[in-house]
């Protein structure tokens, strides 16, 4: 497959990047081009995740890259965002894998775990020796996680969990699941290791999107856990939602990568394909589309950069992440659809990466808070009126 992963920097944002940030981006891009890109279409076709890439991703330091200590690289959030951008320039599934491992599973332990839990799990997760997933969504509770039905009850010194989680990225390949459950006081989290009696994961098949990513259902049937597996510092829905804020941050960056690949592919196609008397790129209709794409990508890049600065300064608000996720993913989806259209019949085959990105972005638009849920979050923020219920 032709490689369309390259820079698009119309506003010279590179001038704002430190040499470390640029080095990080270049290293991940090189990894993607050399190791991930050659096999991604095969994995997408076969509905498999490229597990063989995990050791090299770990060596690079991608997992938990923006966490400090516990074997993590300790990069800043701009560098972390650039990592996500380059991974998703290859495939949203590859970025999802890294997001779930880092921003959801590792971050949950990092922010709500005991010191012992952090020491036990985080270094192994950074090394890619332990893979994680994040069980919040349920079959009947997607946008409304507060209505979750999974319950944990105390039984002596143990906890007993019952319930079902659905749409869980990495579910069946994970060594541990962060599972959120209702208790008498509200909502709390648990670390459920693979092989725990009563715990099972089954893959969801028939996906038309995110096919190079594993999506599973987790079933918890009288799963007994000791207090050592309880994220005791996670109290209330705020704990999982703070993980989602981390993941949305990475998604906002990642979407730019997918959009960029679609743009570069459409641009190259338009410059090389001739119809009627001239190349496609010479038609005003085509130029208009390319310029719209460029403009939206540039705007999304600016949002990401500023959001990263705020996150590094510690002043980022979750609502600001919602705006970025909502805008950037929606823009990426529109760009992918436009690119698909510009490629004509070639836009529907896997010789070009466009339709794969287009299909993937439908998922990205939905997960970690749909486009509409982000709208309600922002609507509440500016009006003071909650429209959720």
């Amino acid at each position, binding site marked *: 497959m032709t490689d369309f992963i*390259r*820079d698009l920097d119309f506003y*010279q944002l*590179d001038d704002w990047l430190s*040499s*470390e940030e*640029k*080095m*990080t981006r*270049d*290293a991940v891009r*090189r*990894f993607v081009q*050399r190791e991930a890109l050659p096999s991604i279409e095969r994995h997408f076709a076969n509905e498999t995740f490229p597990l063989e890439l995990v050791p090299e991703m770990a*060596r*690079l*330091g*991608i997992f938990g*890259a923006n966490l400090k200590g516990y074997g993590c*690289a*300790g*990069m800043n959030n701009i*560098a972390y965002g650039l*990592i996500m951008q380059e991974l998703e320039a290859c495939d949203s599934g590859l970025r999802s894998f890294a997001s779930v491992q880092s921003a959801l599973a590792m971050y949950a332990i990092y922010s709500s775990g005991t010191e012992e839990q952090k020491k036990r799990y985080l270094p192994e997760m950074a090394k890619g020796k332990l893979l994680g997933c994040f069980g919040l969504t349920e079959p009947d509770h997607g946008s409304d996680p507060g209505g979750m039905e999974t319950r944990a009850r105390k039984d002596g010194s143990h906890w007993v969990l019952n319930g079902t989680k659905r749409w869980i990225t990495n579910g069946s390949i994970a060594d541990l699941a962060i599972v959120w459950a209702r208790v008498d006081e509200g909502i709390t989290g648990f670390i459920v290791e693979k092989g725990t009696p009563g715990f099972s994961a089954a893959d969801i098949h028939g996906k038309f999107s995110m096919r190079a990513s594993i999506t599973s259902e987790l079933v918890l049937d009288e799963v007994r856990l000791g207090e050592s597996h309880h994220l005791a510092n996670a109290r209330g829905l705020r704990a999982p939602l703070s993980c989602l804020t981390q993941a949305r941050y990475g998604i906002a960056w990642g979407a730019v990568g997918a959009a960029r690949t679609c743009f570069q592919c459409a641009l190259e196609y338009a410059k090389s394909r001739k119809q009627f008397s001239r190349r496609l790129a010479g038609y005003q209709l085509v130029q208009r589309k390319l310029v719209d794409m460029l403009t939206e990508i540039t705007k999304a890049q600016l949002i990401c950069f500023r959001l990263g600065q705020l996150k590094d300064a510690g002043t980022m608000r979750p609502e600001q992440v919602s705006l970025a996720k909502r805008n950037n993913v929606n823009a990426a989806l529109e760009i992918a659809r436009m690119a698909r259209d510009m490629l004509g019949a070639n836009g529907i085959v896997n010789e070009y990466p466009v339709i794969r990105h287009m299909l993937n972005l439908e998922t990205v638009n939905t997960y970690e808070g749909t486009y509409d849920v982000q709208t309600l979050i922002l609507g509440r923020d500016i009006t003071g009126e909650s429209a959720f219920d």
Partner: protein
Amino acid sequence: MKILVPIKRVPDPATTIRVLPDGSGIATDNIKWVINPFDEIALEEALRIKERQGAGDVVLVSIGQQSWQEQLRTGLAMGADRAILVKAEQPVDTFAVARILAKIVADEKPELVIIGKQAIDDDSNQVGQILAELLGWPQATFASKIEIADGRCTVIREADGGLETVAFTLPAVITTDLRLNEPRYASLPGIMKARKKPLKEIAVDTLGLDLHPRVKIKAMKAPQKRQAGRKLSSVQELVQALHTEAKVI
């Protein structure tokens, strides 16, 4: 073993190069700069030699402006131990580069210099050879395999007619060909560590060398655009065209 790896900053091979209208050089705004890919292969080989031997010191050197330290930092992030930037505001030609490197070699006393066979910007393919001559050291150019044991080095080099094996004693200069290895990319922890590694700056005029240019660039032109081909209807027509137009038969 101490290994010196000279690296040059060049435009990313994927960058579209534009020649300035006055022909004095190329437009450098908006260019992405990288380590010359052949030098990157040299660095990778130096790192592998160090890893095989379990110890060693890989020293990078580059000659250029302050901004060149970005490429030195990348090399440090890949795993080099320290770096030297010889600061020169004006471009230096290959002979001057070799003289500067010879001076750095005299100060650093490495047992081996590994350098790319050429830089992908001007493709001169001279520095390694001139440097070996200035030092009076053995040289092996276009290396596709390097083995070192007991102070002796065996290099398989890519010659025109096939592969040539040469053996010599160290110290020596080796220039790298494309097939020697596939360079690693820097890891994120490596990038963080690179920040703390020593990078020494030396002003070129403190070296006391005669660096007046032997080569002057008089003009630069973009290569002629390739003409589109045309379809011919018969073999006769082709033969005719090859004879009268292309004048090859």
